């Protein structure tokens, strides 16, 4: 229970960064920390006490394995997180070229 609470505190750090900061790069860093916290939460729910990795070995017989299903989901989620980060950084570079600044309070021209 304490482990889950530490994971949610990490999530709240990322959430504070997304809500309060004014620099686009800081907001992207907040999104990255949010993704790390969610992936950690998934793997934490699949752990079994005194468990082994879900890979068979040819020498010994393994009886208690951890849950392989959250690991498959998180493997997909990590690569999707990379795709999101790359697209955010590309848009941030474009904004810097057009406006000359990364500050979001000066980028307010939603004209057609």
């Amino acid at each position, binding site marked *: 229970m304490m482990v889950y609470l530490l994971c949610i505190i990490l999530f709240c750090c990322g959430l504070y960064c997304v809500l309060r900061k004014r620099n686009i790069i800081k907001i992207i860093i907040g999104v990255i920390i949010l993704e790390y916290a969610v992936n950690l939460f998934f793997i934490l729910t699949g752990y079994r006490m005194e468990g082994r990795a879900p890979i*068979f070995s*040819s020498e010994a017989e393994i009886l208690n394995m951890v849950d392989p299903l959250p690991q498959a989901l998180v493997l997909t989620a990590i*690569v999707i997180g990379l795709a999101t980060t*790359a697209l955010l*950084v*590309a848009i941030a*570079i474009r904004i810097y070229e057009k406006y000359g600044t990364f500050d979001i309070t000066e980028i307010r021209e939603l004209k057609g």
Partner: protein
Amino acid sequence: MSREHEKGMSLIVKTITRLTVGLILLYGIYIVSHGHVSPGGGFAGGVIIGLSFVHLMLAYGKDVALGKLSKQASSFFENLGAMLFLGIALLGFIGGYFFLNFISKGEPFRLFSAGIIPLCNVAISLKVGAGLFGIFVALVLLKLKSERKR
């Protein structure tokens, strides 16, 4: 970060890169091909293969790296990987349904076992590696163009 950066980094970095970039590529191919026996799989191996080309570009500048794997070649490999993955999935219609594992299973712990899983790993690694190298080349070329204009 203008003309000098295009020619690459210092001599120490270039020597170490020359020694290790082939080993990184070989390690990536090992992780992809043993995806069904030991941890790893298509995604991790594909990213490692992409990272070896990114390493070459960071150390030597963009001309040498684009000489080894041009933009058309990386686009071709990405499309090849995606279509190979879809083709293997559609071939499952021979047996009955989509994504059926139709090749024989073989004995466990050997390299040629587990049906379509190694072929799918190879297709995914081609797609991921070429795609990530393409993203990096696009971001690098944009930055250099904007700084040259100023």
